[in-house]
């Protein structure tokens, strides 16, 4: 004899099993997403004394100034960028001077530059000064029709012996929050 209650129990288990399996699959899918979007590869610039991690499938350019520029080729009209520079700084100078001169350089090169806020932040155990700013990037190529993009950016100054290391994050305001994580991971990975 079959109790009419027992078959429902296995059926209930089966129902829960389906839900379990689906949740597990979605969980794995989420892990895959994290792994795909947020995988990093390491770099070393400046004769090897500055190292860190940049997103693995971003375009990377090495040079003298900036030392490293990584940009996301897929992020639409304005490629989200991470930039690494060093500037010499006399030991008795405040690192904020470097921020100011960088802001002036930038203001000269772009339109509608506005510094938004300047704070002290903790980066990887060190304190650093961070400035958030915004500007409008207008493309000057007369042969293409490009809309100007409102860019929001962050400059962080890390102090080192005799120099400062400037880390910059630039993104279109639409993707700034979404890509902020890359910046945080990048800044915290810098070792010198």
């Amino acid at each position: 004899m079959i109790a009419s209650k027992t078959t429902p129990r296995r059926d209930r288990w089966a129902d829960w099993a389906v839900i379990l399996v689906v949740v597990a699959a979605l969980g794995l899918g989420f892990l895959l997403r994290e792994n795909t979007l947020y995988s990093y590869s390491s770099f070393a610039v400046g004769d090897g004394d500055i190292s860190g991690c940049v997103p693995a499938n971003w375009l990377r350019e090495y040079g003298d100034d900036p030392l490293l520029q990584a940009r996301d080729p897929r992020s639409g009209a304005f490629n989200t960028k991470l930039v690494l520079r060093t500037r010499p700084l006399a030991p008795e100078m405040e690192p904020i001077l470097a921020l100011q001169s960088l802001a002036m350089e930038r203001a000269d090169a772009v339109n509608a530059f506005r510094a938004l806020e300047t704070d002290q932040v903790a980066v990887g155990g060190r304190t650093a000064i961070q400035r958030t700013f915004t500007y409008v990037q207008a493309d000057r190529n007369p042969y293409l029709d490009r809309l100007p993009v409102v860019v929001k950016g962050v400059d962080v100054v890390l102090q080192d012996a005799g120099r400062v290391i400037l880390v910059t994050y630039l993104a279109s305001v639409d993707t700034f929050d979404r890509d902020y994580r890359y910046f945080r991971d990048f800044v915290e990975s810098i070792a010198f």
Partner: protein
Amino acid sequence: MEEVTCCVCHCPVGADAKRIGGRCFCEYHYAKATQERPSVWRAGLLQILGLIAFVLVVELVVGLTDLTLDGWSLLIAGIVLALVPALLWLLFFYRQDRLEPEPKGAVVGVFVLGALLAQAVGIPLVEQVFDVRRWLPISTWSHIIGSILVVGFTQEFLKYAAVRYSIYPTLEFDERVDGVVYGTAAGLGYATMLNLRYVVDSGGVNLQAGVMRIVVTALAQASFAGLSGYFLGRAKFEDEPVWWLPGGVSLAALLNGLFTYLRGEITTTGLTLSGGGVNPWPGLILAALVAGATFALVFYLIRRANRLTLAGANAKGPVTSERGV
């Protein structure tokens, strides 16, 4: 002594009641469970052929008349095209299903439920929470595995749920083949909502490219939902192991993901100096083949199960007894 009831209608039955796979049935429902419903298969076949013909007609008409629509007229044309696969199947199915027809309200209800689940849960989950469009195409690995784990499981689970939590426990679900019927309905509902969103969110799509995508989506979603519907149909009328249903849904999800990936691969022609294009016809052929194969397989499996049942493996089926809880 425990009461023996029919597993379907819960009416008491005698100890010599017919059994399938360990479960008891009353006479009426025993006959129903093993009922063949050729209308389903004919409708399915007609659906596949009809959709292919639909694509060809649209391609021909647009190609020959060089039809160009703009703005509202393009949008409305797209919406009409998006609704065609569902209407077509409903038409075929109801036409074919004359003998002891399934209640129309139930089929349409599951269809609507599938569509609503897509709109309310499925699409937001895939597009916003998981933000699939952003990371799926990055690498082949992420493309395949992501299609299976995220897109596949979400879609298949929702379609399964549209059947499982609505019509499955009721009396209307009284045949093995009902799983496929309602699964297909849920799948088409889901597909119709996907297609409508595709047309409306783009503000109107190119009709020739659009009709391809609409038909491929409809065929694919209906096939995989029909597959998980088969698993459901078996599960209601036979004792199946615990992994049967999750296995079925997972299989459907796996096929769904693989299909998505393959379709993307075979429709993208490589880049040359003459341009890089998209050739949608291989995708249509793949979808038609997959739909045909899936339905043929499910058809064969159900028929075999029904034949086996009727051939007499019933009264002496293994008796499962468990401690009552």
